[in-house]
């Protein structure tokens, strides 16, 4: 759970750092990624891994389209405009997905190559697919952090995130960096969507709420912090599991689904920029 939230949260952070806007369309891109994985791996019988690759490509293209049609024309306008526009795109895309009968008429099963096997870890039996989800999440997160910190692309990305104009002035190709950030976020969303639909869970239009619960994860960690996204994602995952297991019945059914928001409100009251975010310095 935490691993999936961290993946989704990373997608939000990557776009936020590049474009300075919260990309609400990330939610529907994640759902699309999950459904594409289902389509490719089950209906086209390409297998699980190839299915994820196909989904990642499709989601990357969709993210690219969103960048060129919405985010790029709105660059330089208030970030609120981008946020509102992506909310619109998200509503449209999600309704569109819900209107495609082969996918949305009932829950679909992406399944998993590991079936219902369990592995014994530290004396308790755990679904193998859970372990794989955690492993995939961890590998991707480490790879991404490494790319950000060590590669030439990461350097450029951080430069653009820091100050777009200064980066452009020193010769960083801003546009390609932006495009790559959006595509990368789309691919992360697709991977997360695929993992959301992996074995013990089924994919349904309501799976979009996974991505909505990743938003508190991002905010808890701090919108512009990669570390924050990872920690926030894990935290939200733990809070959700604990709320599901230990919350008193008087708090109502499904309290675990809203617990992340309560946690987020609490964190924001004490640290308005999130746990790992940098407070933005403003001047007139």
């Amino acid at each position, binding site marked *: 759970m935490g691993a999936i939230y961290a993946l989704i949260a990373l997608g939000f952070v990557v776009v936020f750092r590049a474009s300075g*806007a*919260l990309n609400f369309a990330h939610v529907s891109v994640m759902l699309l990624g999950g459904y594409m994985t289902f389509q490719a791996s089950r209906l086209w019988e390409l297998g699980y891994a190839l299915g994820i690759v196909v989904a990642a490509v499709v989601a990357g293209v969709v993210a690219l389209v969103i960048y060129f*049609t*919405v985010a790029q*024309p*709105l660059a330089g*306008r208030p*970030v*609120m*405009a*981008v*946020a*509102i*526009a*992506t*909310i*619109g*795109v*998200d*509503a*449209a*895309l999600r*309704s*569109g997905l*819900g*209107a*495609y*009968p082969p996918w949305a*008429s009932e829950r679909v099963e992406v399944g998993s190559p590991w079936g219902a096997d369990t592995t014994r870890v530290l004396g308790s039996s755990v679904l193998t697919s859970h372990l794989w989800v955690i492993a995939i999440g961890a590998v991707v997160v480490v790879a991404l952090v490494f790319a950000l910190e060590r590669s030439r692309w990461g350097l450029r990305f951080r430069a653009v995130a820091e100050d777009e104009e200064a980066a452009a002035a020193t010769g960083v190709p801003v546009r390609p960096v932006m495009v790559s950030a959006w595509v990368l976020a789309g691919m992360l969303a697709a991977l997360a969507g695929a993992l959301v639909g992996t074995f013990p869970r089924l994919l349904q239009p309501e799976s979009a709420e996974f991505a*909505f619960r990743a*938003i*508190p994860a991002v*905010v808890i960690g701090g*919108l512009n912090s990669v570390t924050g996204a990872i920690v926030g994602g894990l935290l939200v995952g733990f809070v959700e599991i604990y709320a599901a297991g230990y919350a008193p019945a008087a*708090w*109502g*059914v*499904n*309290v675990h*689904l*809203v617990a992340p*928001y*309560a946690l*987020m*409100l609490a964190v*924001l*009251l004490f640290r*308005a920029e999130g746990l790992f975010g940098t407070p933005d310095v*403003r001047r*007139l």
Partner: protein
Amino acid sequence: MAAPTSYPFPPRARRRRPRLQHADFHTTWRSELRLWNSTVKRLAVTALVLLALLAPYLVDGVWMRVATMALIASIAAMSLNLLTGVAGQLSLGHAAFVGIGAYTAAYVTGPLGWTLWVAAPVAMALCGALGLALAPIALRVRGLYLAVVTLGFLFLAGHLFRNWESVTGGVGGARVTPPTVAGVDLLRGGTLAGFELRQYHGYYLVVLALAGLTYLALRNLVRSRTGRDFAAVRDDDLAAGVVGVDVFKAKARAFVISSAFAGLAGVLLGGFLRFINYDQWDLLLSIDYLVMMALGGTGIIGAAIVGALFVTAVPEVLDQLAPHLPLLSEQAGVGLTPPRASAILFGLLLAVVMVAEPLGLYGLWLRLKRYLATWPFSY
């Protein structure tokens, strides 16, 4: 001795209100600030009010339902416009306040046994208080963080609607007793003081009056000192604070007033629907209100009414046209149903409006006016 002259200034002309007042050229500041500051605007408003009053005699039941729903939605959209469009505080949780208003209506008319007329001020006070509770958060977090906070508020409210069964009825939903005047059900119609009321007619008139009052209240607020404070906070809250605007007070006022009117819209919506569900106050409803605001014209209070009419009418139009349109599914709940088709349309419209014409239909209207005014030398 000659009477003192006012040389070199001509004697002060008696200020008369011109018979035809142009919208842009005024002789006094007062005249420019008037609510409808030109002759044409005054005539147009009069015509619109007359049309709205006569509408029940011109259209049949289905469209009366749509018109009433649209007017109720316009109250919510106008209040969102005050908060987001004028004061610049993006809220994704507006549907929650509308829902709280509706549940207040259910509780007040159900277990407490009072009428819907009592529920309205109660809901406005309750929602206003809740808005005040959000204000300190709005002071601490800005922009996107605030949007996320209001999103969280929406989900938490939804959780409460579902689980606080003693008040909200939980999953079973809640019933709102429709209002009556002198024993006449305003929704069904009847004869009231010698007046023949058709279906929805009475309720429509009540809603129309309240929507009109809401418009006047919010519009007057925008052109007051408080309204200018809101605009200053929207443009840059730090700068507003520096020049002496009490930022906290402005934000708190925007939240309180906006939430109170959203509560009013909720009461009216509850009374109209008679039965409310826990899951209808979701993000999609909030997005609908955003679309009404953005499509009409962000920051232009009255434009939200146009947006509300559009957003409420489109699903109904699609529903009626469904058999004749390709792609549209007539089977309930499967495929591209009219509600889904309109959600797709609204989502795309929201994006298109943001990219192409940030002022929405109002912006288009301004462009058209400018084009016609400078014709044939328009560019």
